[in-house]
């Protein structure tokens, strides 16, 4: 008997894998539980999302309580979240409109579909600022790059995927400084920063722009520590940070609510989104019947 044990173990595992593997196919079952995907505590996207939908409760004496359901799967990065949503047909999540790709489905909120256009004209209300921070004293190259970002040309680049933050921006006149500028921080801001860099280098080939992807706090801390010149943040600064840093808003971003491609839902009210992410609605049926 004992010599069969490994064999039995193997058979058991094989059985387990195959029997479950064929259960996932077929129609969208509305009775299924909603798989809520969220981002980690402290993420700029999460902070913005929970504040916009009032999932965070602000108390009278400065208290703050994030009511996101404890059952939410926490994805550390935007792409991890996207692949999670793409592979789980009963999932729902949120991410920056600029980083959405074709593997997942966007849904309208209160009847407004998220596009650069609707974020720009304010009808799509789920949005947040993209901020750059620097020390109070900066190098000529850094200053020139920032001037570019806030200029008409720079804002046009930002407006390709986001909404521009500066109205009536001035035309850009480079002082053509040479030098290296290190930009670090939020992975949400990075895509637009890459585009800004490309456009700027064409105007001023003397400068070297290096972009490091991490997250908002690392970027801000990097500026304070002097390891980078410009920090990218998708969250507002804390008071302790504001005291020592300068900040500029370079763009606005919409936050998209996304579901799996096989999900029949096209629209949710902001009340429904709130209830789902607070864990008050747990089955798809409840949303489909209401919708």
């Amino acid at each position, binding site marked *: 008997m004992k010599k069969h044990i490994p064999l039995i173990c193997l058979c058991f595992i094989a059985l387990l894998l195959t029997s479950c593997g064929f259960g996932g196919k077929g129609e969208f079952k509305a009775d299924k539980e909603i798989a809520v995907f969220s981002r980690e505590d402290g993420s700029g996207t999460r902070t913005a999302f929970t504040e916009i939908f009032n999932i965070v409760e602000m108390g009278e004496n400065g208290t703050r*309580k994030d009511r996101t359901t404890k059952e939410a799967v926490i994805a550390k990065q935007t792409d991890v979240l996207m692949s999670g949503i793409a592979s789980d047909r009963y999932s729902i999540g949120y991410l920056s409109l600029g980083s959405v790709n074709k593997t997942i489905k966007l849904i309208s909120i209160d009847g407004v579909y998220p596009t650069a256009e609707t974020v720009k004209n304010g009808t799509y209300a789920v949005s947040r600022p993209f901020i750059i921070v620097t020390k109070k004293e900066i190098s000529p190259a850094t200053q020139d790059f920032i001037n570019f970002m806030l200029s008409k040309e720079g804002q046009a680049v930002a407006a390709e995927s986001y909404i521009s933050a500066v109205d009536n921006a001035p035309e850009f006149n480079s002082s053509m400084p040479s030098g290296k500028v290190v930009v670090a921080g939020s992975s949400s801001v990075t895509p637009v920063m890459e585009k800004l860099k490309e456009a700027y280098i064409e105007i001023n080939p003397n400068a070297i722009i290096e972009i490091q992807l991490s997250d908002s706090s690392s970027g801000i801390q990097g500026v304070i520590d002097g390891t980078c010149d410009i920090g990218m943040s998708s969250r507002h600064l804390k008071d302790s940070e504001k005291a020592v840093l300068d900040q500029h808003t370079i763009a606005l971003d919409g936050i998209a609510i996304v579901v799996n491609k096989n999900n029949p839902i096209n629209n949710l009210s902001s009340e429904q989104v709130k209830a789902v992410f607070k864990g008050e609605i747990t089955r798809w049926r409840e949303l489909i019947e209401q919708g």
Partner: protein
Amino acid sequence: MNKAKEKIMSIVFLIAALTSIFAVALICLFLIVNGIPAMAKIGLFDFLLGKEWAPSDVPAEYGILPMILGSLYVTAGAVLIGVPIGILSAVFLAFVCPKKLYKKVKPAVDLLAGVPSVVYGFFGMAVLVPITGYSMLTASLLLGIMILPTVIGLAESALRAVPTQYYEGSLALGAGHYKSVFSVVLPAAKSGLLAAVVLGIGRAIGETMAVIMVAGNQARIPHSLFKGVRTLTANIVIEMGYASELHRDALIATGVVLFVFILIINLSFSALKRRSDK
């Protein structure tokens, strides 16, 4: 001249040996300096036994009990899956496997040890998660596979270290091949096998990347095999990027707890090893 050379070389060796000790000391110092004040500030019991982890709330809550339990459950699951398969594999390699096959199986096991954990994570995400979801079960399965090379390697050498007279004596008394292996050799290699299990536990509890990718990472008391779980390692890696001030120190304090766990595991490993060497 030669004497001077030897003297110099012995100093070089001493420095080389001290480097790793220095590194360990530095890490301990870093953990203590950053982690202990945070624990004191949060309150040791609130920190270790608190059920709520909500660092962005005001007032913030820093209870890591969910993560401690998460780490323990996932590791226990990995041991339940990995240890039986690992020890039976070791028995196979040491007593059953024909030489020709051994030359193929052994490198395959070693290769398993060399696979980067992020690759395990991708495997888990692409193959296991669609079946078992982001859950404790998935994390345990994946970790069970990941600890196999550790368990197999150590268990095999423990089995081979048992004097052949034991096995032969058992045969001479009329016991069969498997009876001898399972009733005589395995018990004789007990502490070596335990050491293999302990090191497997150490590998499982310290694993980070692969677990983050499949476990779901919910910071609440784990309550079901089919629901997500967050481990101590995951807690640190996931939030370190956004953490500042007390939150950051609380994560380092989480590292202190993990460090204590690893310390206990390593101490019991060396205790077991000493016993098996006797």
